[in-house]
């Protein structure tokens, strides 16, 4: 550490330029508008420009004041941040409380050689539990990270235990995960909104009109499949691009005995560090399509990574990759043998759980659409009546298959210091949760569950999604499972032995 380590410092002055980044979209769309109208500035645009100038002045002034009022200090035992314009706030975090450090740089940050430093602490998740410093130079960020994690046992990168590195062959899994059709829809909607915003009415453009008329004249059996193929291709390309952007240069490793570091990103680079004692488990995700192709992704169940959504994004340990690779990374993160998940037989859940899944499918997928088609068919055209029974047959068959798969997915087991839980069909998730991380138990029942002896057990953890469900366990086994998985919680409240069973509810 330098001898100036104890001095109050300012964020890098270049940060002020980052705050101007919001100007890009409106200026861009304005430029597009000027281009689209052939050099003439539309009258609406002048007002926009004036509004932009005013808000630019205000935002820049605010940014300057905020920047000049922000200071941070790293001493040998604490990290402190002073901020706030009207109400001054100083937050001090003792270094032993720092549990993870993330370095994130958006393209704009990288252009300016800056990085955002975020330090998560042991405090309850949320804004109070973290310090975010936006932004410092890359060198300063790395100095801060090393110093902040010195207590957590981070060491030089030379003796890292590497868990995973990017293999470009994994790109083939990208189209199976990204919401291909939805992605294209979102992109198209955004483009339309932008065009609409700059005053281009798509339906008035003769090119578009001609194209639509042309397509309408041709046989539908040709144009519809062609459109589907085009959308799929576009969506897949988008998925590849997203995958590459997110996972470029991916490397996950134990940096020292106590910290797990994941580095990734092409335009926005991320470096996420998780402390061993805050890593309470690992989640293996196998969405339907990815599972069919033999792939899986891995997410860490760790505390201090922010709220549920942030935690999910920051906790990613492995992109969609071959399942054996995923199992290896999962075991490496848990420091367990690599056959952890596949070698342990899971206890299946009762058949009533299967019935529950089938009923759910019938109620939500089969019945509403069938009834709607029947009603429409009765009042409009008999052709829809045929659609109704075809839909009923197909949807029932699909429901039966999916329900069976969902039921087969269900399972739980105790293995060493971990609780294993698997569930889901659209996304089959297998959780390996550290048993010592469980801090409360919840037993929930639905009316169906009370009739058929099913209980959903929820393990509360101060990490990840906070509540992890073991769905539809046999009511008779739930308490025993909770006691075995995490003793010392439910024992006070047991029915005295030998008492006949009470009626449920």
């Amino acid at each position, binding site marked *: 550490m330098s001898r100036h380590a104890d001095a109050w410092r300012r964020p890098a002055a270049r940060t002020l330029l980052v705050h101007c980044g919001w100007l890009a979209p409106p200026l861009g769309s304005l430029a597009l508008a000027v281009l689209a109208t052939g050099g003439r500035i539309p009258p609406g645009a002048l007002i926009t420009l004036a509004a932009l100038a005013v808000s630019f002045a205000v935002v820049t002034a605010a940014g300057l004041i905020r920047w000049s009022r922000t200071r941070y200090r790293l001493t040998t035992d604490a990290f402190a941040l002073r901020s706030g314009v009207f109400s001054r706030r100083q937050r001090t975090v003792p270094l032993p409380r720092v549990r993870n450090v993330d370095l994130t740089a958006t393209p704009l940050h990288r252009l300016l050689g800056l990085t955002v430093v975020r330090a998560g602490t042991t405090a309850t998740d949320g804004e109070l539990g973290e310090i975010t410093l936006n932004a410092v130079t890359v060198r300063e960020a790395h100095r801060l990270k090393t110093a902040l994690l010195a207590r957590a046992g981070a060491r030089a990168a030379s003796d890292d235990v590497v868990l995973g590195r990017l293999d470009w062959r994994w790109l083939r899994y990208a189209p199976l995960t990204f919401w291909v059709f939805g992605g294209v829809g979102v992109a198209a909607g955004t483009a339309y909104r932008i065009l609409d915003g700059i005053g281009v009415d798509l339906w008035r453009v003769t090119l578009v009109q001609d194209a639509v008329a042309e397509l309408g004249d041709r046989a539908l059996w040709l144009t519809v499949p062609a459109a589907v193929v085009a959308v799929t291709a576009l969506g897949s390309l988008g998925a590849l691009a997203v995958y590459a952007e997110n996972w470029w240069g991916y490397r996950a490793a134990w940096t020292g005995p106590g910290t797990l570091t994941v580095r990734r990103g092409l335009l926005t680079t991320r470096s996420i560090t998780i402390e061993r004692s*805050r890593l309470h488990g690992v989640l293996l995700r196998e969405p339907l399509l990815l599972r069919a192709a033999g792939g899986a992704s891995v997410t860490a169940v760790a505390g201090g990574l922010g709220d549920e959504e942030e935690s999910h994004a920051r906790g990613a340990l492995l992109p969609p990759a071959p399942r054996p690779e995923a199992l290896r990374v999962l075991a490496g993160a848990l420091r367990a043998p690599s056959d952890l998940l596949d070698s342990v037989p899971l206890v299946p859940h009762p058949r009533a759980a299967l019935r529950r899944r089938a009923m759910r499918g019938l109620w939500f997928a089969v019945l509403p659409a069938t009834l709607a088609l029947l009603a429409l068919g009765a009042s409009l055209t008999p052709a829809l009546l045929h659609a109704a029974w075809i839909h009923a047959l197909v949807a029932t068959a699909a429901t039966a298959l999916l329900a069976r798969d969902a039921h087969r997915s269900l399972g739980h087991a105790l293995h060493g210091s971990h609780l294993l839980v698997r569930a889901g069909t659209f996304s089959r998730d297998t959780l390996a949760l550290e048993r010592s991380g469980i801090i409360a138990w*919840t037993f929930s029942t639905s009316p169906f569950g009370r009739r058929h002896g099913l209980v959903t057990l929820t393990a509360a953890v*101060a990490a990840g999604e906070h509540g992890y469900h073991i769905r539809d366990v046999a009511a008779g086994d739930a308490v025993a499972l909770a006691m075995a998985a995490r003793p010392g919680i439910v024992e006070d*409240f047991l029915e005295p032995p030998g008492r006949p069973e009470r009626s449920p509810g």
Partner: protein
Amino acid sequence: MSLHSTPRLRPPRHRVDPLARRWWAVQALLTVSGPMLLTALALGLLSALFFPGALPWLAPLLLVTLVAPALGYLLLMPRRRCATHAWELGTHAVYAAGGWIWQRRRIAPLSQVQTVDTLRGPIQRRYGLATLTVTTASTAGAVEIAGLAEADAEELSRLIGRAASDARTAPTGLAAPVGGIGEAAPGGAA
């Protein structure tokens, strides 16, 4: 299925205050049943005044979609909640049961307790009731006890606070503090 050897949870010992039923009824009337009944009344009146021809099909429709659910909720919900809601403070943990259609029982060890909050809403205050929330480091581990008498809530909050600080200073060896890694992993006891 009922093996006598399998451990079962018993319901918590203490019921909620009898006034809680009235509180829940008022709440139902103000938030769900009241608005639904008023909507049904307004639609029925408007129809009777301006479109009398629509009444024969509108009246049954309103009865089924608005009036019956509103009355059902108003009559059933408070009664069911009174039957399920209960709480108990054990030596090592706090236990609460709640809900009416979807019911849940939650148990959190005292060594994990972070804060104890008492909330008195405007309607609750009228009936001298309070809701006690015991939070832990996990948002899925917060134990909520609704419909306590104010004096009971205060007493309970004091008891839990003291028991929690006792549990933390003298760990039972079973419940490690948040993020604890000191605990030896028990062998696979499935």
